[in-house]
């Protein structure tokens, strides 16, 4: 949706400026719509990889969008790599399940929260802007522990 604005035109130069403003505000709407809900993208997808969302299972090819509350699953031959809007990077090995439980990120202040849970399998991760701004605002949970991230690369394994 584009915002409606009225501009009183006083001169030709100002008119040019107003035209730009209209164009820019129009674009703002289009750019922002995406930032509001998509939290990341699938970048690499090998073998069987799927996303469980609202009780439905979707095939997750590279380019697939990720949302809060999604669950990402890999099969026996599967592997998946993802990037998130705070530039954090996560990937899963075979036979793995990761729940993207909570994600919020303010692109101006970098405040946010990223909570995911490894249900089974292997996870590799490099933290991003959320953990850099607020140590331990990025958390990875497993059935037995909670990992708070203070800006680093790490791996987690949850055996079957």
């Amino acid at each position, binding site marked *: 949706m584009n915002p409606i604005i009225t501009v009183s035109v006083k001169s030709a130069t100002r008119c040019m400026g107003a035209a730009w403003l209209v164009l820019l505000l129009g674009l703002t709407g289009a750019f922002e719509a995406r930032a509001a809900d998509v939290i990341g993208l699938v970048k690499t997808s090998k073998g069987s990889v799927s996303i469980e969302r609202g009780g439905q299972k979707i095939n997750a090819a590279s380019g697939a969008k990720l949302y809060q509350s999604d669950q990402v699953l890999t099969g026996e031959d599967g592997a998946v790599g993802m990037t998130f809007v705070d530039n954090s990077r996560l990937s899963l090995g075979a036979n793995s399940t990761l729940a993207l439980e909570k994600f919020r990120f303010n692109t101006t202040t970098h405040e946010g929260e990223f909570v995911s849970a490894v249900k089974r399998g292997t996870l590799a991760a490099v933290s991003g802007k959320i953990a850099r701004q607020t140590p331990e605002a990025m958390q990875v949970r497993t059935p*037995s522990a909670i990992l708070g991230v203070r800006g680093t690369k790490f791996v987690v394994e949850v055996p079957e």
Partner: protein
Amino acid sequence: MKTFNPLSAFALALLLSACAGKDLFVVLPHEDGSVGSVVVRQNGRDIVLDKANSAIKAGDGKSFTIASKDVDQRFGTALTGLPPAARSYVLYFKEGTVILEPDSGPVMEAMRKDVTSRTAGEIMVIGHTDKVGKVADNDELAFTRALSVGDVLVASGIARDTVMIAGRGEREPLVPTDDEVEEPRNRRVEISVR
């Protein structure tokens, strides 16, 4: 069929108990060799891992160092799947305008090559200001600058749905200064490609 061997049954049981149900956490060095840290919290206890290959198994009270070949064996597939790190390109404007400096052409070209070389490549355009003026005004200015660059990118053929716009205002100066100090190098737009 083999006859039952109590010794091998015992060895199998040992092996199974060693493998069963123990979550493993490992901190790894970044590509540049630097190491951050994680805190592993279980049963109300915190254990900090802050050295390369520092590891802990759930339920254990002590960390240990895991061999790199064990990391590769267990996590090779996941590690191979990690997408490449984001990379930033910085553009400057002619003083007080949204017109890019003439030497920004090669930077734009390098950025474009980078984004097209990545699978499902994306761009985050981030505006930055110096510390002159109010924080809120600088947020708006930073966003407006980022927006104008986003517009240029889309006009030059980059798909709009791969571009995100952000304004960091005066929070992330390239050159640290006191408040209200003019610093042209801080008035910039960063294009982060991931």
